[in-house]
């Protein structure tokens, strides 16, 4: 029995890493009395998985996990019990019993990030949008990153332009600019938000203060033709 759960992760709790988050949920299940299925063997552990783990230091408005249950539980009851025990900056938002037998990770293909940063020159929203559009249109945004090759890790160059779905300049207050960026996630290509920031910084399209960057994952989407849907 799979329960699919949407939750958020806000404020200081963005500093909890993926493994720490797994441990937190494991203990929360126990405290909330959720009948999670355990693996067999010498070291049994609860069966659940979080889709597309968030990088450390990024907030989120919508994360997803699949939990394997021993028995079906009432969804309102589940949400209430979990939220009673969870820290206030992590909330269960929704849950469903999915009809299809497909893992949540395999369904997701895009992530929408909110990016707030300070720029070091005086530009209007329109100026910034134009520069970013040109940057994307030109293509060939090359980053180098370590990639596994057999047992070794090798520095490889990669064009991330195809992994960027679009950039919207949403707001500007003083020197603080807010963008929304659609980035590819999943097996067919995965853009890490900090790689995007590094690429943007390196491009010199806009001069930005890297220490001022803060990120929030606003949504994860599945793709159907040219339409994007939230999975729950």
């Amino acid at each position, binding site marked *: 029995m799979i329960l699919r759960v949407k939750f958020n992760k806000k404020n*200081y*709790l963005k*500093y*909890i*890493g993926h*493994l*720490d988050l797994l*441990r*937190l949920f*494991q*203990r*929360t*299940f*126990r*405290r909330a009395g959720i009948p999670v299925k*355990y693996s067999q063997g*010498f*070291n*049994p552990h609860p069966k659940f998985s979080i889709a597309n783990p968030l990088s*450390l*230091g990024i907030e989120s408005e919508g994360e997803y996990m699949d939990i394997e249950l021993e028995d079906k539980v009432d969804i309102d009851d589940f949400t209430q019990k979990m939220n009673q*025990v969870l*820290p206030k*900056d992590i909330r269960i938002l929704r849950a469903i019993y999915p009809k299809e037998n497909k893992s949540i990770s395999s369904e997701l293909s895009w992530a929408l990030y909110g990016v707030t940063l300070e720029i070091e020159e005086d530009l209007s929203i329109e100026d910034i949008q134009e520069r970013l559009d040109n940057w994307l249109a030109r293509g060939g945004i090359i980053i180098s990153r370590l990639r596994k090759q057999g047992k070794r890790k090798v520095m490889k160059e990669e064009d991330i332009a195809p992994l960027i779905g679009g950039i919207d300049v949403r707001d500007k207050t003083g020197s603080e600019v807010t963008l929304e960026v659609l980035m590819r996630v999943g097996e067919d290509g995965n853009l890490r938000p900090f790689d995007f920031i590094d690429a943007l910084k390196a491009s010199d399209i806009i001069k930005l203060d890297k*220490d*001022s960057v*803060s990120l929030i994952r606003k949504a994860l989407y599945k793709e159907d033709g040219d339409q994007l849907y939230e999975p729950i």
Partner: protein
Amino acid sequence: MIEKKKLDRVLNKVIKPARYIGMEQNSIIKDLDKVKVKFAFCFPDVYDVGMSHLGLHILYNLINQYDDFACERVFTPWIDMEELMRKEGIPLYTLENKEEVRDFDILGFTLQYEMSYTNILNVLDLSGIPLLSRDRSNDDPLVIAGGPCAYNPEPLADFIDVFVLGEGEEVTLELLNKYKEHKERGWDKESFLKDILDIEGIYVPKFYDVHYKEDGTIREMVPLIDEAPKVVKKRRVEDLDSMFAPETMIVPFVETVHDRVVLELFRGCTRGCRFCQAGMLYRPIREKSPSRLMDLARELVDNTGYEDISLSSLSTCDYSQLQLLVSSLMKEHGEDNVGVSLPSLRLDSFSIDILKEIEKVRKSGLTFAPEAGSQRLRNVINKGVDEEDLVKAVSYAFDEGWSKIKLYFMIGLPTETDEDVLGIRDLSYLVKDIFFNAPKEKRRGNFSVTASGSCFVPKAFTPFQWVSQDSIEEFRRKAYLVKDSIKDKKITFNYHDPEVSYVEAVIARGDRRLSRVIKRAWEKGCKYDGWREHFNFQLWQEAFDEEDIDGGFYAQRERNEDELFPWDFIDIGVSKKYLYREYQKSLAGQLTHDCRLACTGCGIRDCSMRGVFN
């Protein structure tokens, strides 16, 4: 309160930022404007280490039970965080309200090991609090300290306003209530300090003067005011069942050293190992009842969601009803995938049987602590085990499927000869022979034995408080003697750095003149001295030289019977006479039996555990 934006800039760049955010499950965030006394509890090491300390969870939950008090936590930031905090001008803050430490009424340190002392100065400095007690005004927090190292408080005398000696459950509340009274009628540090002198277990160093003899030893320690007692008695809680015990623990986000429920079975120990300070300090032995422990375990598991209950005590296998407790715990919690674990193991089949019952994971390693390589030396330190015990326990363990054995030893124990040291090698080979002497078809697993030797540090309030520590060169020579004598791939020998143990030994039996050296060492950049990668012996040597203090005087000097020690004004219940008698017996190689068998006359009053064994 620290500005979140400022903190964010820093947290984005450090490793394990979750160390610095608080907000863990079961942490308690009060409205600081509504409490009367704000207490900042500091474990002067990194979060992951400090959060594993049971005493923190006890005092935190105890103090926070009261509406008038708030207890919040402080740890030392790791090197990377400290650097950024200094650069960005962020003062040290508590994890709960992210309030500056210097805005608290009281800053309390727990002293768990001497090598954390430079971190204490770092905490004061990062908080913007003057280091020296005499430089602090009525506007600065009161700085107090307790814990095992407070039994020789003198090396910290210049920095700490008040020491709390003994078990903290009762005295901490008495102190906080007194503070509240004084704060309500107008705070004056001086009159407060005078007013608490009649509380048992309280020591205020500024009200004493120490006079020295020509040879550098202490002539006398004199109270400067009438109210200051000549002898300070340690506090002890009489009945552990009715004593406060936490029913909840903060559950850290990051993985800590002991990430589990800690269930304290008893305090004290009756074995009388002569090197062991805790064995003397925490007498008499007092147990909690199995029913109380079952209740506590239930609450703790419910409130934390932990998957493991660790049975903690100085010698857990000595708990009189261990079998009953373990099977009851397994019965109640086993089905929920909650396990039970033992932190240490006695060298006998009883202990291994219990371990067998609880071990759900793969049978990997077993650890024993013979402490010394030869029988002669084990008698000297009164470690009541012989080779036969080891042979039996190890054979039994191999039969039961274990194949990796760890053995703990100390190097540099009093009267030690090269023959004794080489006993470490002999025991390791013996363990290997036991494994391979079994018929091939009966052997299971991939055998290895790891022996590790730590450098012996003589401690105050032990029968060895009179002895000289080995020199650094001697430690190293002995370690290599063992290492070079082992020529077998299945046997590994590790040893600890003697330099750290030397500095530890100096401070462990130091007097108040050492405050200057500690301060100097910190000024030179010493911190995290307990962490091998950060300990800098060169800087410590410079600090000793510049303050013109000879460390050897403290570490490597055999004392006379009648020498007055810096800690002699403290009454732990065990008499100095008894300790000296034990010292003499040790030199003669005579054993002292477990005192549950019959009283050995250590001086403790109202001791009630006689004759109770498992």
